[in-house]
């Protein structure tokens, strides 16, 4: 069921942003307004209207909640996975560089990571989100318009990098002392070959676990950012953005908050359980400290 969002466009009868403010639908043979004149939206009708408005409409625009839920889930998952890929890529490269070269390369990278790490994650996310909400991002040929979901993806991918880079760097520092690294150098392997050919294969199991848990974390951060208005920009929906609109209506339509929230909990929970199992399976003794939290999410400290 959690994968349903992937097929959203095939299942849905209407677009996620299509409004049905003054429309009427037939529920179990009875004509009903999607939104009543005083602004109350129709609640869940389940299978009463041929699958339309399964979970009712969202607020006074009369958008189909179920359709939005599916499209929103797609956004949330996309952000979670894409940001995790970015984080993983950056963390692997930085971790390898810092751990392999040590010396000033390590100092520079570690200090930069310290800075991002010390930056309160939510504040940094909101600051960047707000900063980019108006003008978008323009770096050379790379141009991202302000409503694009790439903005939250990049922000999340960026702010969580230290949390993955630090444990990886620690691991690389330890691996680097192993004789097989020296053996590779003795055979004439260059730094890149050593990093990616020799060290990286030893990091995979760790990376996969961190990656899984990172998706879970990213989805939580995405929801928090969207809740604060710095994440996914309307009318695009994500589960976090849906909670954000939902809480505005919580006293009149609590389901609009409860449903997307439950979806997040279930998805994140599955990812956490999966990541946990993966960790136990691959590396039972390792203590991965990367756990799901939106606000504070701890790196593994070397020696801890």
């Amino acid at each position, binding site marked *: 069921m959690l994968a349903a969002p992937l097929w959203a466009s095939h299942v849905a009868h209407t677009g996620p942003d299509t409004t049905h403010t003054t429309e009427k639908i037939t529920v179990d043979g009875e004509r009903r307004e999607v939104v009543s004149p005083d602004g109350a939206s129709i609640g869940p009708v389940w299978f009463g209207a041929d699958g339309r408005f399964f979970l009712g409409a969202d607020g006074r625009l009369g958008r189909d909640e179920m359709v939005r839920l599916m499209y929103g889930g797609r956004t949330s998952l996309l952000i979670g996975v894409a940001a995790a890929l970015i984080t993983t890529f950056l963390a692997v490269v930085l971790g390898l560089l810092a751990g392999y070269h*040590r*010396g000033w390369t*390590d*100092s520079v990278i*570690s*200090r930069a990571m*310290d*800075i991002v*790490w*010390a*930056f*309160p*994650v*939510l*504040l940094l996310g*909101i*600051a*960047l989100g*707000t*900063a980019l909400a*108006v*003008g978008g991002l323009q770096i050379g040929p790379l141009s991202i318009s302000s409503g694009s979901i790439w903005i939250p993806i990049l922000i999340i991918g960026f702010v969580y990098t230290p949390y993955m880079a630090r444990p990886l760097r620690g691991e690389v520092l330890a691996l680097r002392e192993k004789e097989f690294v020296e053996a590779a150098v003795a055979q004439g392997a260059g730094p890149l070959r050593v990093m990616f050919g020799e060290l990286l294969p030893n990091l995979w199991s760790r990376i996969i676990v961190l990656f899984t848990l990172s998706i*879970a974390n990213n989805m*939580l951060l995405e*929801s*928090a950012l969207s*809740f*604060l*208005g*710095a994440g996914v920009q309307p009318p695009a929906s994500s589960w*976090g953005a849906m*909670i954000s609109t939902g*809480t505005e209506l*919580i*006293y009149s339509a*609590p389901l609009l*908050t*409860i449903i997307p*929230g439950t979806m*997040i*909990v279930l998805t*994140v*929970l599955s990812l*956490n*359980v999966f990541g*946990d199992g993966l960790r136990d399976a691959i590396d039972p*003794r390792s*203590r991965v*400290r990367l*756990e*799901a*939290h*939106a*606000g*504070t999410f*701890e790196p593994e*400290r*070397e*020696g*801890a």
Partner: protein
Amino acid sequence: MGRFAVRRLLGMLLVLFAISIIVFLIFNVIPSSDPASRIAGKNATPQLVASIERTWGFDDPLPAQYWTMMKLIFTGELISYSSQLNVDEQIWKGIPATFSLCIGAAAIWMFFGILFGYLSAVKAGRLTDRALTILTLVGISVPVFWLASVLLYYLTFKVQLFPSGGYVPLTENPLDWAYHLILPWTTLAVLFIGFYSRVLRSNMLDAMNEDYVRTARAKGLSERQVRMRHVLRNSLIPIVTLFGLDFGAVVGGGAILIESIFNLNGVGQYAADAISNLDLPPIMAVTLFGAFFVVLFSTLVDIAYAYLDPRIRLEAASR
């Protein structure tokens, strides 16, 4: 040792400096943050905007503006662009609420985190452990702000069991203070309870296989004594570390969501307001405040560790 501490503290200053520059730049490259027109308001004339730019120094070069701002923060004279109030004073006023929230929540999460972790480890593999594992996994999978909103709906509106938010100073009425904070404390703590009990559980399970524990058992200590005196005590060290870092992070911005939802008027709420106003001075000050706590606690933890384990000192020094 002293050398390590001095270095770490210097590093901390460097990080704070870098953060202040980053924040400053982020908000100076936003096209629409132009503070002068914002201060001038809706009907502003060009003269008014020009006059404001002169008064506030917005026409100075950026480094000069940065320097002025930092000087004002540290002399406590920085005023916000949108309300013209003293930023340091506002932060100062938010501290009681933020600390009440964080310290209370921290007490709760430490207590339950340790309790659950201990029970889970002792009953490893049994029903209690399974149940607690599920519970803690759910705990770390719930978006905090969502939990807060749902609790608010059910416990303050459907069943009017708790007040719907707001902060009552401890000095005014201790009972009311706690009553208003129960929900925020609980919500904030849930995540950490899950997190800490999981860490403690795995640490304890590891520790139970260590030689010194076997020796203790062999000496004839009761299982209970072994657990409390040896296993738990040693497994708590990493928890205390984590606590230092988490507490820093929560004070430094982690509480922002809870504060806004429960209308606690703490530092986090102040930051959220400032960000939505694109009001640079408070954002600078609050970010530095938050980063200060994060860095401070991580430095304290590092120094404490270096004290306990000299190898770290050497490693750090050789970098």
